[in-house]
């Protein structure tokens, strides 16, 4: 069966620096895969290659079994992307932002449908007609997630999704991501938050200096052991790892 997301010996060299070096992984349908790594490990670059924003120097990335290089538009149509900064327009309201970006994606949604999505991400009713420039980071993040929900794409790429969120918002966000995965959406998230990754992901891949150096899978009905992953992340020896 074709994996929604697959990296095959993915390498990336930018301005003479090796950003990714032979990274391979697959993400199954309905799976949450978290790529964990420090600053400059190549996490965000991995995401950007799936969107066709960066061209691999070697290997390839596939979305639904098709090479992104040969079908960028197809890849982007299948993916909802949530950038780290939850970048939306500050001069527009939540309604206006969602309407606009949905339009760009070739989708349309009624105000009721938008409200349902915003209810799902728990964006307060009173905030929805305010411009985003008055929003907190968490509120912007929720609006961006609502966009991902409304697009109804089979794949969700999340770049440091909980960065800057308070603990309550993080918990709410994790619950939402899990619900999406249970609904069949495939999630690839990159983060340097060990605890968060272990809490939400079905599998965690450890990226260091552009190489995938470890992978940890959750036991059925259990979470990934945070201590083990943390030890690996910190570079302590003798950590247990599964095959990537």
């Amino acid at each position, binding site marked *: 069966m074709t994996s929604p997301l697959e990296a095959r010996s993915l390498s990336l060299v930018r301005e003479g620096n090796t950003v990714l070096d032979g990274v391979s992984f697959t993400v199954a349908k309905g799976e949450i895969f978290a790529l964990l790594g420090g600053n400059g490990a190549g996490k965000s670059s991995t995401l950007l290659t799936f*969107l066709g*924003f960066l061209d691999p120097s070697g290997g390839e990335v596939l979305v639904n079994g098709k090479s992104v290089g040969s079908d960028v538009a197809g890849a982007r149509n299948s993916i909802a*992307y949530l950038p780290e*900064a939850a970048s939306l327009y500050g*001069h527009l309201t939540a309604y*206006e932002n969602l309407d606009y970006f949905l339009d*760009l994606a*070739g989708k349309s949604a009624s105000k009721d449908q938008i409200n349902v999505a915003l209810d799902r991400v728990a964006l307060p009713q009173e905030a929805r007609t305010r411009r985003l420039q008055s929003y907190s980071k968490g509120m912007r993040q929720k609006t*961006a997630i609502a966009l991902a929900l409304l697009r109804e794409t089979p794949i969700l790429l999340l770049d440091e999704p909980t960065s800057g969120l308070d603990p309550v918002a993080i918990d709410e966000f994790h619950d939402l991501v899990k619900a999406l995965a249970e609904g069949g959406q495939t999630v690839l998230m990159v983060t340097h938050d060990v605890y968060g990754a272990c809490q939400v992901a079905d599998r965690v891949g450890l990226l260091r200096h552009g190489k995938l150096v470890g992978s940890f899978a959750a036991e059925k009905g259990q979470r990934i052991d945070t201590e083990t992953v943390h030890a690996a992340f910190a570079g302590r020896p003798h950590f247990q790892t599964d095959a990537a």
Partner: protein
Amino acid sequence: MSTVLRIAREEWRLWLRSKVVVAAALIVAVLLAATSVLTVNRVAEEQSQRIEQQIAAEQTFFAQPDRHPHRMVHYGHYAFRPPPPLAVFEPGVDAVTGQSIFLEGHRQNTAMFADTKAAADLGGFASLTPAILYQLLLPLLLIVLGHAMFLRERESGTLAVMLAQGQSGTKLALGKAAALLAVIAIFMIPLIGVAAYSVSLGESALAATSLVAGYFLYLCIWGGIVLAASILLKQRAVSLGALIFVWLFAALIVPRFAINASSAVIDAPGKIESDLVMLAEQRKLGDGHNAADPAFMQLQAQVLEEYGVETIEELPINWRGVVASYSEAELTELLNSYADKRMELEASQSHLFGLFGFASPTIAISSASRTLSGTDLATHHRFLRESEDLRFGFVQALNEKHATDLDYTADINRNNGEEASRAARINANAWQVLDEFRFEPDSAVQRMDRAMPSLGILIAWLIAASGVVYLASRKVRL
């Protein structure tokens, strides 16, 4: 609504919600409106004044009493060049070349009310007119509005979100271009209003439409340059700085350099300078007031032989009139040769200046603007030539009257008392020899022909700017 129009609409929403942008647009709109109204009023007033003055000058000439014909040669006449209707938008070289000429015997006077000689205003940047606002200020406003169109998206991260929605860089660029195009369309409204007003004053619709189209092209070029910078450069400050530099270069530095270079490469002396050089040659022609001047001995022999008489007193015509006519023809030939040479040099300067349009679209539009408005150097030169034809025509007609209608003996005795003076006059009906003079702009087709090279340069600029935008947009990266 198509994606392109949707992107354009959102850009507009951003501009309208930005107080700075709205304030800048309002200031420019007020400036544009005020300048247009003031220029329209001034030029309309000048036009009616000069037509009235032309009629008054003719009536004054015709109303002169019986006189010696040569006194009327020196009494002279005025030729006025009324501003063409489109001068309400583009006064062009009118402000510096002079718009009226005193016409008299033996001289080609300089056009009056001139601030400086014609060749000095090749750039036409002398004062704040609607044309100058369109050429200089509106590109600046486009820079303010558009320098960050793409960069803002890139810096805020929304470019990634937009592209991630499946949109191509080319489509985003088209959307941004459509937003700028709508701004430019709004900028064109005052010009369209002025053009329509000029048509109501008698201007050709073709010329007025071409002028509007020329400025539309010009502003689209600036829109393209602004958009290209916004796509290609990586920081807002760099984009703004680079575009301001391009504006300074294209709108001020190149025109200034082009004027100096044209003057340096083609040295065109002014009217006074040429007159001084010509003076020595003029003296060799003899003094037409003195029929006994040795310069006319050969002419005298020819005329006596032609009429088969021995002395000038025996001639059936007035010898002094013959000399005056001959002398005027010789002198005019000399004057015209110098004037033609000077005008050729000025035209060459103007042509060379126009070629700098390849380095600056501002030069191309300013040249096209003056030509299409009928306020260019070529039109001024035609005015000089036509007024010279008028001068030569009435002076020679008076000399003819002098030769045929006034007795030679009475003529040479004209200073011997009041009665002798009266006997040396001819009937005032003779003053009807003066032709009516109404200077008209060139036809729209002629102006279009002359403006074609500049319009062609503008089209080349637009193709180049669009090409850069297209290529850059295909490679849009985060």
